[in-house]
């Protein structure tokens, strides 16, 4: 990453923190302005909605341009490769001299570069080297991992790191010892990524990128060690290999399966690490579903209700425990709101509620179906739940 881009990221992080403090009423407007002046932002940034729109339409333009050249009779892998290289140059110019960070167009160009270069290379390998499907998938996943990693490193695109890590694990799954790799690599990589991501010498985007890669590694470990995924041969199916079957590996998997949620949660809470806490939450949920798959605890309605009650009680107890500490905090954790944490959760609640808790609409006139009842997840009103 260019040093000026890294410096701009650090300044932006301070400005964002000051904006959150201002919103929470911790500082006044004059102080916020003083912070902004002391940490000026020389980058062109788009608001989230413009970011989305600009990225979407840039990708549309790039793909349509590729289609145009191909449809004009030049059906050769050179086309996507050349256009991919052009997209990479466009991204470099935007992230560099034009200083367009988080602008939508620059990130979209980086995405197009990876996509088109992978398509062009795989096309070439298939056409000229006549690689089989297995080798093609290996080449594609290795290339995606490498290019996405480069994008994350050069331009500080955080999501590219997650794509790179996921592609790397897909590549490992193609190997004959794929499952073993999914078990061993995260055990080595996750602590390393965790430690490195805490280094203040790294740019903020690089730190986040490493955190995302760590989360992907832990999720891969969770999948590989999951008995259900083991018995179904989930990892092996990615390479069209037969399931591993029972044996020492399954026993090791079971051990990792039992330990992983607890270890992740404990490390997350002790380190006040929200990434790990969220990952632990996801792993615990998957573990609970897996447990229910093998051990019949009771009817599904009872399991759902009890799980919901446990979550509610656990949340309330946690809050009470944290509130009872000195200054309403324990070991650096608090249940009090701090600077803008809740807004995103509230927005997500609204969106999820409208998408899932809304009752099914009444059928148009002429359709006789009468389907009253609760929504799929308790939304009152007409649906087919009863």
């Amino acid at each position, binding site marked *: 990453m260019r040093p000026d881009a890294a410096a701009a990221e650090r300044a932006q992080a301070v400005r964002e923190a000051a904006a959150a403090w201002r919103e929470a009423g911790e500082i006044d407007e004059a102080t916020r302005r003083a912070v902004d002046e002391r940490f000026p932002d020389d980058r062109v940034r788009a608001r989230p909605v413009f970011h989305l729109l600009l990225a979407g339409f840039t990708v549309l333009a790039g793909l349509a341009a590729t289609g145009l050249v191909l449809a004009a009779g030049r059906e050769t892998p050179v086309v996507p490769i050349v256009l991919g290289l052009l997209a990479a140059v466009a991204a470099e110019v935007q992230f560099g001299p034009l200083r367009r960070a988080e602008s939508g167009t620059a990130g979209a160009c980086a995405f197009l570069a990876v996509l088109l270069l992978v398509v062009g290379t795989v096309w070439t390998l298939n056409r000229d080297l006549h690689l089989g499907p297995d080798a093609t998938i290996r080449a594609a996943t290795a290339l995606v991992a490498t290019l996405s990693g480069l994008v994350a490193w050069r331009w500080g695109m955080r999501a590219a790191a997650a794509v790179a890590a996921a592609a790397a694990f897909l590549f490992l799954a193609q190997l004959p010892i794929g499952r073993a790799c999914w078990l061993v690599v995260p055990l080595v990589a996750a602590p390393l990524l965790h430690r490195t991501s805490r280094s203040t010498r790294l740019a903020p985007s690089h730190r986040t990128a490493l955190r995302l890669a760590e989360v992907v590694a832990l999720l891969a470990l969770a999948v590989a060690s999951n008995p259900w995924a083991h018995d179904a041969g989930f990892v092996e199916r990615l390479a069209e290999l037969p399931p591993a079957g029972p044996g020492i590996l399954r026993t090791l998997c079971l051990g990792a399966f039992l330990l992983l949620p607890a270890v992740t949660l404990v490390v997350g809470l002790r380190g006040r690490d929200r990434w790990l806490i969220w990952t632990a939450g996801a792993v615990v949920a998957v573990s609970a579903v897996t447990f229910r798959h093998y051990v019949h605890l009771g009817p599904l309605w*009872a399991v759902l209700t009890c799980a919901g009650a446990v979550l509610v009680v656990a949340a309330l107890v946690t809050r009470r425990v944290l509130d009872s500490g000195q200054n309403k905090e324990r070991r650096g954790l608090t249940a009090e709101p701090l600077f803008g944490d809740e807004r995103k959760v509230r927005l997500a609640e609204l969106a999820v509620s409208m998408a899932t*808790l809304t009752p099914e609409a009444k059928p148009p006139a002429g359709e006789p179906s009468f389907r009253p009842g609760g929504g799929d997840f308790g939304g009152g009103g007409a649906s087919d739940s*009863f």
Partner: protein
Amino acid sequence: MLPAEKGAFLARVARGELVSLRAELRVALYLGVTLIAGGAALLVKENLDRIGPLTIALGLGAAAAACLAWVALKAPRFSWGEVPSPHLAFDYLLLLGALLAATDLAYIEYRFTPLGAGWPWHLLVVAVFYTALAVRYDSRVVWSLALTTFAAWRGVSVRFLEREPWDWWGDPTVRANAIACGAAFALVGWLLKRVGRKAHFEPVAVHLGWLLVLGGLADGASQSTRLGGPWLPFTLALLATGAALGALAFQLGRFWLFAMGAVAVYWAVSRLAVEVIHRDTAVFAYFTLSAIGFVVLLLVAQRRMREET
């Protein structure tokens, strides 16, 4: 720049030495409530004959009443302004009580059929009930459910994720209802803000309203080849409405509304274009040039909006 004590506190937060689990606890409560509501719905579905209708109705009613009673006890005094939640669990027990009550009402309607052929009216009752709860206890989530339940009463489903993008509503009556509901929601939102009563409910109503209006028009504009419907008037209406919304949102500095209007305009123009362009190269050329043009327009609009807000 900052007083020492405050600076020390902010520095602790910035260094990650003090972390709030508020968001995580809220997510846990939300998931817990939805799981309980889902479990209750499943209980009713799987045990219709075994438990007995009266037991189910009374059980659900009692659970809903318990939740709402706790909410009523904890609730602060009513205000037309924004009221902070008195307890972390307040919003979620309110939501659970509302969902259980609505499930109970739907079950009673299904089992005892008090409304007979007019059973969809119970959706209106639920929508009014949700509205009352949302206004009294200042819940935006319940307010959003009130709006979507009202739309469901008119046959409009907002479960977009469960449907193909080109088949949201299909039926002309439902499409018309979607547009009418959307316009009504946008109007309600505008009124709330204008009179200063629950003005913070306005964004939900206005965004959902315009989504329904533009979605209904886009749905109509997409029908031509499959149903032979009047796609052209819908397309022109989508173009005009999107342009008007975009212009209005541009003046008001409402970024998301501007985006919705802009996408609607692009959709309508593209709909017209693909109707007259048939060669592959021409279609690709159109999307290449139009997308680049749109990116340029967005960049200009973004700069102007930033300058004006």
